[in-house]
């Protein structure tokens, strides 16, 4: 029963969607402010969600119906699971629900894959195009992310346990304090940007090119769930960065404030990048990750070997 509570209430579905919703509002609001606009009200993500829940859900006649309808459910599940696995060690909840870095890495892939599968299942040709871009992008950034991951495992002394990594950082200072840590931060943030499908890597759901791409056929409940998964990922990915590079969260005294600031700072960074760049093409993104980000990551790994 405890697991069910962890999964659905705290730090799972409910907590993650509320927190992620606020972060996504923060992102939208900040975007608006950067563009001299007022921006949406604070509860906007929740309005959107509830509205979409109440709307009609349309399934394309070309779709593989069951898969199309279930894909967003998988997305939410994957996002939630990764959230739980990240936060369980953070909150020091002992038993029952654990996973290591590799598991989290794979679970964080699940929402993206679900979107891709859902888009392909929708039977819309334009979604196909979006899905093809998304999966190419996935191939692109996954390699950089893996390098970063490996570097972190290396820095943590060949352990993959989230708990140990946090503990190590709290004892010996966050990984970002070292030169290799700083270098690792760059590709990792770019991967986060790509995973969140924000500009400059939003080519899969580029509205002005392919009219919504992978989400083109989603409507009503399916769209609501897809949005929910996005909200959760908005919490999960920055938290992941914090856990592996920025010293994790600490929940005592003044550290709560620091942890919150880290989270908000990261979202701020994501939003800034998102608002100061145009979208890249598939080839350019692939080149960006394959050449530049991998280069940085490899240099960081070499530095980490040298103990820097």
């Amino acid at each position, binding site marked *: 029963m405890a697991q069910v509570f962890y999964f659905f209430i705290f730090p799972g579905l409910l907590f993650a969607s509320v927190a992620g919703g606020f972060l996504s509002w923060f992102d939208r609001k900040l975007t608006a402010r950067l563009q001299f606009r007022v921006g949406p009200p604070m509860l906007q993500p929740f309005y959107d969600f509830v509205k979409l829940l109440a709307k009609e859900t349309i399934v394309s006649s070309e779709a593989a119906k069951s898969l199309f309808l279930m894909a967003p459910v998988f997305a939410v599940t994957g996002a939630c699971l990764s959230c739980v696995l990240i936060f369980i060690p953070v909150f020091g909840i002992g038993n029952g629900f654990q996973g290591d870095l590799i598991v989290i890495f794979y679970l964080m892939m699940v929402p993206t894959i679900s979107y891709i599968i859902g888009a392909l299942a929708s039977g819309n040709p334009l979604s196909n195009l979006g899905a093809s871009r998304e999966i190419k992008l996935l191939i692109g950034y996954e390699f950089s992310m893996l390098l970063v991951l490996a570097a972190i495992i290396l820095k943590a002394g060949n352990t993959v346990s989230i708990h140990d990594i946090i503990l190590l950082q709290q004892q010996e200072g966050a990984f970002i304090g070292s030169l290799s840590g700083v270098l690792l931060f760059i590709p990792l943030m770019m991967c986060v940007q790509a995973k969140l499908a924000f500009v400059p890597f939003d080519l899969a759901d580029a*509205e*002005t*090119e392919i*009219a919504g791409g992978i989400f083109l056929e989603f409507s009503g409940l399916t769209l609501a769930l897809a949005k929910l998964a996005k909200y959760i990922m908005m919490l999960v990915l920055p938290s992941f960065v914090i856990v592996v590079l920025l010293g994790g969260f600490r929940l005592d005294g003044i550290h709560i404030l620091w942890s919150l600031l880290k989270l908000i700072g990261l979202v701020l960074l994501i939003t800034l990048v998102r608002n100061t760049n*145009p*979208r890249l093409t598939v080839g*350019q993104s692939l080149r960006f990750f394959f050449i530049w980000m991998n280069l940085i990551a490899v240099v960081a790994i070499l530095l980490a070997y040298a103990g820097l």
Partner: protein
Amino acid sequence: MPEKTIIPVGPYHPLQEEPELFKLYCDGEIVTDIEWETGYNHRGIEKINESKTFEQVFFVVERICGICSTSHPFAYANAMEEIAHVTVPDRAKYIRSIVGELERIHSHLLWVGLAGHFIGYNTVFMWAWKYREPVLDLFEIITGNRNSYAMFKIGGVRRDIEEKDFSTILTILDGLKPKAEMLMNAVIDDPVIHMRTKGKGILTRQDIIDFCAVGPTARASGVDIDIRRDDPYAAYPLVNWKVIVAAEGDIFAKAVVRFLEIFESISIIEQCIEKMRKEKPGDIEVKVKNIPEGDGSGRAEAPRGEVFHYVKSDGSNAPVRHKIRAPSYVNVATFKKSCVGQTITDATLALAAVDPCYCCTERMASVYDARTRNKILDGTGLIRMSQEQTRLIQGRKSKVEGQRSKVEGRRSKVEGRRSKE
């Protein structure tokens, strides 16, 4: 092998505000051919015009395209004045040029914004449109409406610019300059924008000549044509300015040309105002009694290129044939060249790069509105008019009243905004 695959762009696609269907034939992500389907926007304007009087035609040609709503009347006026052998007073020339150049500024800013939107750079979109707003305010000051200005008539203009407005216009333009410069630098210096636009969608000089393309599209490919200089009209021969030409022919060059033209336009307006200040207020129109038989071709340089109007009159009060060639009509055809061989992503940007305006492209068979035959002076009048029509047709009184009060509400809001600024 499977049949060629098609990526449809349009008709109701967020890339374009107007409906148009482009079928991109693709091989992988590479576009191998393009085909278009038109007619979604066909209104038959040329045909409508034949049932209108010469004066009324102005209101139709204004509505060929909302963005070029000065250029079409401009060209039409040129054509009519050629038939009627009329020379327009200087002050009217200046006013015409001012409106025309303001339109160029607003249209180019609009394009910059939309192009930013298309490449996912929403900040550029928002900023460009924010800086476009003062230009629309200027329009409101000069013509009374933000779009569709109803300024032109045969032999002159309808409204004078008052002395007291000059300083306002100059202040707003002065405020615009640094902002436009900032925006230009932000766009032109951005390395990622370079990646996306440089070397993409190239049109060579020969392509331009083959397709007979005009305007910034041609000028960005090194073809030095500008109707304002080549076939001078209005006040353009009276002021100093230069034609911006770039050689590369890619999307980036088009953006650069448009940006620099904004500054040229600002300078033209300032010079016009200087000259108007020096001269005493005079006539803004010559009365034209009747239009003789004959034909006239009028041209004007719209933001997108040369607008061409060919009017044939048989001596009555209405045109027998009114042919309109908007710049997009020739520019859009160049997609066949600029899109092929690009990836889909670049092709969609290349579609946007010529600043296509399908409304212009598809006006063809003309239509003119019988109900607006009487003198419509400005947009407000039209609003009222259409409200009445709405009421007539719908018989929904309450709604119309709602809209009435809404118009009031809007007015107070405008004032509120003004006072806030």
